């Protein structure tokens, strides 16, 4: 697995030497962390590069990290020919989570980005139809952020002190 990661890192470093922040293998998945403003450029570069050819977008999602006040956008790419996988992460500030859209490279990113916007409020610049997808349109919060608890924490009719969930 590490050979796969090393190869990807060297390919990315050919062109984006200063935009690659970190790389590691998480369990069995090569992961790289890149600067948020270059992420789409890097993905389209990896799409076209003859040795990388990551031409399948497996999934895309957001993660909220309240301790560092950041939102992560995670992309998972797959090369179906060599069966190589890659996870790309990028960090955005919670106050202004803006990132270019990936729909220019993968049409399937359309709904996945809408879902990420719906739950985390990440604004994908250039997205053709960025509006809520699963929640109601007039919702005013981004519900998957950690500051919104699942239930009202001040409810008094429910005592979860012993068997808290």
């Amino acid at each position: 697995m590490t050979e796969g990661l090393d190869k990807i890192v060297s390919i990315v470093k050919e062109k984006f030497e200063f935009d690659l922040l970190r790389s590691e293998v998480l369990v069995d998945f090569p992961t790289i962390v890149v600067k948020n403003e270059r992420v789409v450029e890097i993905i389209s570069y990896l799409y076209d590069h003859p040795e990388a050819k990551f031409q399948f977008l497996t999934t895309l999602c957001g993660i909220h990290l309240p301790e560092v006040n950041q939102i992560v956008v995670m992309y998972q790419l797959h090369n179906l020919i060599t069966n190589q996988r890659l996870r790309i992460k990028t960090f955005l500030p919670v106050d202004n989570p803006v990132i270019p859209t990936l729909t220019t490279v993968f049409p399937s990113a359309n709904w996945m980005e809408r879902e990420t916007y719906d739950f985390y409020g990440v604004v994908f610049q250039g997205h053709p139809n960025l509006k809520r997808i699963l929640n109601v349109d007039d919702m005013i919060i981004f519900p998957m952020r950690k500051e919104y608890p699942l239930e009202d924490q001040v409810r008094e009719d429910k005592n979860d002190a012993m068997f808290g969930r």
Partner: protein
Amino acid sequence: MTTMEEKAIVSDQYYKAEEKQYSYLNLGPTHPATHGIFQNVLKMDGEVIVDATPTIGYIHRAFEKLAERRPFYQITPITDRLNYCSAPINNIGWHMTVEKLLGIEIPKRVHYLRVIIMELARITDHLICNAVIGVDTGALTGFVYLFQHRELVYEIYEEICGARLTSNIGRIGGFERDFSPKAWEKIDKFLKEFPGVLKEFENLLVRNRIFMDRSIGVGGISEEKALGYSFTGPNLRAAGVDYDVRVAIPYSSYEDFEFIIPVGQNGDVYDRFMVRQEEMWQSLSIIRQAIEKLPDGPFHADVPDFYLPPKEEVYHNMEALIYHFKIVMGETDVPKGEVYHSVEGGNGELGFYLISDGGRTPFRLHFRRPCFIYYQAYPEMIKGSMLSDAILTLSSMNVIAGELDA
């Protein structure tokens, strides 16, 4: 002339100039032909679809948020409700994700038992889809006939875990009990009876003139577009790409079995039907191989920290009582980590992306739901086709509302 009349004339002119051929049709949300809660606002030119706007989220239940407040073993019932046509695949996929995070060694027998269950689930999933394709082309007989045998599979689930549709099958580390002799009897009965039924169903439709006229060349998608829209599962294979998670990234000892991946050519309704049909035959063969090669051994991994001890033990054995208490109260330490595990679900690559911060619940759990990802290609697939073909395309894509909306 009053202002009202003026307005009417203006809007009429506008209508004539801009939209004169088009009418709008609201297909869904609860339409008997859509098999689930899907809304599509169709822009129609006569009977031809010009454009479609799908609206989803009618049965959104916030599973990803719910999962952040539930211990790992309580997330299994949530996964039941994703693709409820093949719930055991989702359950087992989730168990395997947690096992990957914990780094547990799973006995070979558990792998084989899981393969049997997952392939039975795949048969039921494909069987519903293909039977419904038949219904939408006007052949109700096959549907009623096949559902009798879906019932046999549900009886097998019932014998193994006690539940039928939302199965909640197995546990982290294996199964809660070994398969009973009755369960093996039922599996044998199914394996004996089902091939004949499937063959008869195939004879009913595969070379049927009416069915072929209705389905060949309808709702097609090219290989490039299918890859661009991140299709997986039978829909991608019907378009001609031989990607199957069972072969590409084998899990649960799938590498031990001989089976072929059927691939289509045009990606149309007929190809999707045929790919699913062939996959059912392959599943039957995998189940037979698994039963034949089934090794002896324990039916669960030896992980007392995560696998609930038997109830009698809890009453008479101090250690078992401690483990039971710790598991139920969520006091066991889970390693920190980040894993992605994918299984070949009923309609594509079902992935679980789990981040654990060492707490009793996941920090973040993301489901890669194949339906959600490929349903966005639906407007493009039905553009320029007839309304009745749009309905057939929807049912042949096997979009399950539970998985679509999570």
